């Protein structure tokens, strides 16, 4: 009992710290501008609400008995709420704004729901306690219900966030009943909770039953899966036809990142070499395309003539990078590749190469792809080019994974010395990983250059390398579907939430830390894929690539 109360206290204080942080960096206010459900539940409130729920859930989870658990939830939620009340009180009575620019009357109004002083101070505490209680009840539910509820809530959240895409799919009037200008209507949310709940419940029970049955090859390709797959294909093929132009733009960047991700995944995921300079190949591909096709240059190639050169030169870049660092492992490798990425960027800016690469101004008027009379001009056109690029990259990557070379990469990843003693040629194996990965990077860069029509050194900074690496990790290192999921989550979603640009890196960091704590294997980890591909039995112990840290 005593330790449980102490844990509740700690969780409550931590929750309070996070809640105050969210408020003081201005996230609450910014997020409050977008209403997700109806015109009352904004993303800001949703953020606090989730926090309360989580605090209650955590506090209940550590307790032995249900009653103690709920008591803990009340205490923890109360403390979290109280710290917000405290914040309100301080903001009202002291000049907090001199230090925290966001501790404004607007924030107070949000936290107190516009109520007067004393009543207003109670509101955060009361809501903290009540939502934490809900979180506590949630923790006490049976596992199946918990999963149904969680997935339904996530689905509704996702539907609200993806309103722009979904709304353009629906006929006008129908769309209006379900969607507001920024999220879901109450009807929309209600039907999502209801229908989504039933569907998810049915799906989860179905899967539980499937697990009990011995696996056959038919159960793998059920008609339902085929239907979903065809729908997905249809969705991908027609996407630019019905969505807004800016959405095609988002899809294009997701696609370019997928190509890069598939490339880097060969190096990091399959061969196990941490490469922090992947942007170098993207830049080489883009600049090669620019130099070869720009009218201000001397080559005047067409897009299609230049494309193979972009890829080949990027690939040579991969080999040149690979040679000196063949013997490096782990940290040293990461630092060396990081340096390589920077070298390329600095070379591009340098005065020395300015006559050829345009220095900081870069190169403009890059060639567009043409097929017969048709020229690819706008994002919708490029969408199809990128889609084909993704498919080719996917095809190559998945073939490589199952090939002899792929197995050699994985052996090198697991243990370089043993792999060599098994007869694997370390030099060629590592170099091909770098080369093919770089080739994908070059392809992505070349399409990018042609699409945006100009290349400037600024577009090729370290953040791209980090993004690509992060999307691989979030998706599930070494997993191909993981790359897709990772790119959609880390590149697509932030683009759709442009109004929150300033908090992008903060959220990014939080997502990565949470992932590493609770799901280190990624959103779509490799093992599941392995079982699908090889049709092998489930191992007796769940296989996790990385150990989950022990909780004390």
């Amino acid at each position, binding site marked *: 009992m005593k330790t449980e109360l102490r844990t509740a206290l700690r969780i409550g204080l931590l929750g309070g710290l996070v809640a105050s942080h969210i408020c003081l960096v201005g996230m609450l206010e910014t997020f409050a501008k977008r209403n997700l459900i109806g015109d009352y539940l904004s993303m800001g409130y949703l953020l606090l609400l989730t926090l309360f729920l989580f605090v209650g859930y955590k506090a209940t989870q550590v307790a032995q008995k249900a009653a103690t658990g709920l008591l803990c939830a009340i205490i923890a939620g109360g403390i979290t709420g109280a710290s917000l009340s405290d914040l309100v009180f301080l903001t009202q009575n002291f000049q907090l704004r001199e230090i925290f620019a966001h501790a404004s009357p607007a924030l107070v109004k949000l936290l107190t729901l516009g109520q007067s002083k004393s009543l207003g101070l109670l509101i955060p505490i009361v809501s903290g306690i009540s939502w934490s209680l809900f979180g506590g009840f949630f923790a006490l539910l049976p596992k199946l219900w918990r999963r149904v509820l969680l997935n339904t809530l996530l689905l509704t959240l996702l539907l609200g966030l993806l309103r722009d895409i979904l709304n353009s799919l629906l006929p006008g009037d129908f769309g209006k009943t379900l969607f507001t200008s920024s999220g879901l209507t109450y009807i929309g949310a209600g039907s999502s909770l209801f229908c989504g709940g039933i569907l998810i419940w049915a799906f989860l029970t179905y899967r539980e039953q499937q697990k009990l049955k011995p696996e056959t090859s038919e159960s793998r390709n059920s008609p339902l899966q085929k239907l979903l797959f065809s729908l997905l294909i249809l969705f991908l093929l027609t996407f630019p036809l019905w969505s807004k132009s800016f959405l095609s733009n988002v899809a294009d960047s997701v696609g370019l990142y997928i190509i890069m991700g598939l490339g880097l995944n060969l190096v990091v995921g399959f061969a196990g070499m941490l490469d922090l300079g992947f942007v170098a190949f993207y830049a080489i591909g883009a600049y090669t395309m620019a130099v070869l096709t720009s009218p201000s240059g001397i080559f005047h190639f067409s897009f299609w003539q230049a494309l193979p050169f972009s890829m080949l030169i990027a690939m040579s870049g991969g080999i040149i990078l690979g040679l000196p660092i063949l013997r490096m492992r782990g940290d040293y490798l990461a630092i060396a590749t990081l340096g390589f990425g920077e070298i390329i960027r600095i070379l591009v800016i340098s005065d020395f190469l300015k006559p050829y690469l345009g220095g900081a101004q870069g190169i403009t008027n890059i060639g567009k792809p043409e097929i017969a009379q048709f020229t690819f001009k706008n994002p919708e056109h490029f969408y199809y080019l990128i889609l084909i690029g993704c498919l080719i990259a996917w095809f190559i990557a998945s073939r490589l994974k199952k090939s002899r070379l792929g197995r050699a990469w994985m052996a090198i990843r697991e243990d370089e010395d043993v792999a*060599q*003693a098994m007869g694997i040629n*370390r030099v060629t194996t590592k170099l091909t990983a770098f080369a093919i990965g770089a080739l994908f990077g070059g392809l992505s860069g070349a399409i990018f250059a042609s699409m945006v029509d100009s290349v400037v050194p600024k577009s090729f900074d370290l953040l791209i390398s980090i993004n690509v690496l992060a999307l691989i990790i979030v998706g599930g290192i070494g997993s191909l579907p993981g790359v897709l999921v990772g790119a959609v989550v880390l590149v697509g979603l932030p683009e759709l939430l442009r109004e929150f640009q300033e908090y992008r890196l903060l959220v990014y960091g939080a997502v990565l830390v949470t992932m590493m704590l609770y799901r280190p294997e990624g959103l779509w980890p490799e093992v599941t894929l392995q079982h699908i591909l090889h049709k*092998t039995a489930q191992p007796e*112990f769940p296989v996790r690539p990385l150990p989950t840290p022990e909780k004390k």
Partner: protein
Amino acid sequence: MLTLNAIHSYYGQIHALKGVSFTVEKGEIVTLIGSNGAGKTTTLNTISGLIKPRSGEILFEGQRIDNLAPHEIAKRGISQSPEGRKIFGRMTVRENLEMGAFNRKDQAGIRHDLAQILELFPRLRERFNQSGGTLSGGEQQMLAIGRALMSRPRILTLDEPSMGLAPILVAQIFKIICDINQQGTTILLIEQNAQMALSIATRGYVLETGQIVLQGPAKDLLASPQVRKAYLGG
């Protein structure tokens, strides 16, 4: 079959092997014993090319191999079950074994050997689709030996196969080593467990701080007072 001639190996400045010479003849079990840090693992890694000797020569079936890359040495038929097992943790037992046959093309032969290895280690059959990292220590050792055998080596080198195993498992492993040898594979066995190693070996060498200090038929070494004192506790 395998001959080391005055091999000197270094780790940077550290002189780990100071002129090691020995031979392994076809069909033998030769054991190399010695205390911690004597240079046993270094000797094995020098043979398999992971460490390049600074001087001396290594001959395998009459040809020099000390200047070859590790994978080329492996292709000639020298296979290693490394110290500490070092199996591929994120691959299944099956994939680990298949990696052992990486350079073989004869599918039928591979299937035959796989079946035979599973016969030898029934535990591996039960764990066939489990990932290597989740095996117990003993099972990992079996896997490491099985993987080394999958290349159908001319000579199998084993680095402390008994390390960390229960006595009953040690006896089992040694029995299997004998069986493998009976089927025609030459074996170079490195051990701390001198008693066990010498009892199954044809000949033995004693390594001390990078030098061979004693050599002879295994029976003689077992009886030698020097060995008894240093390795067999009296």
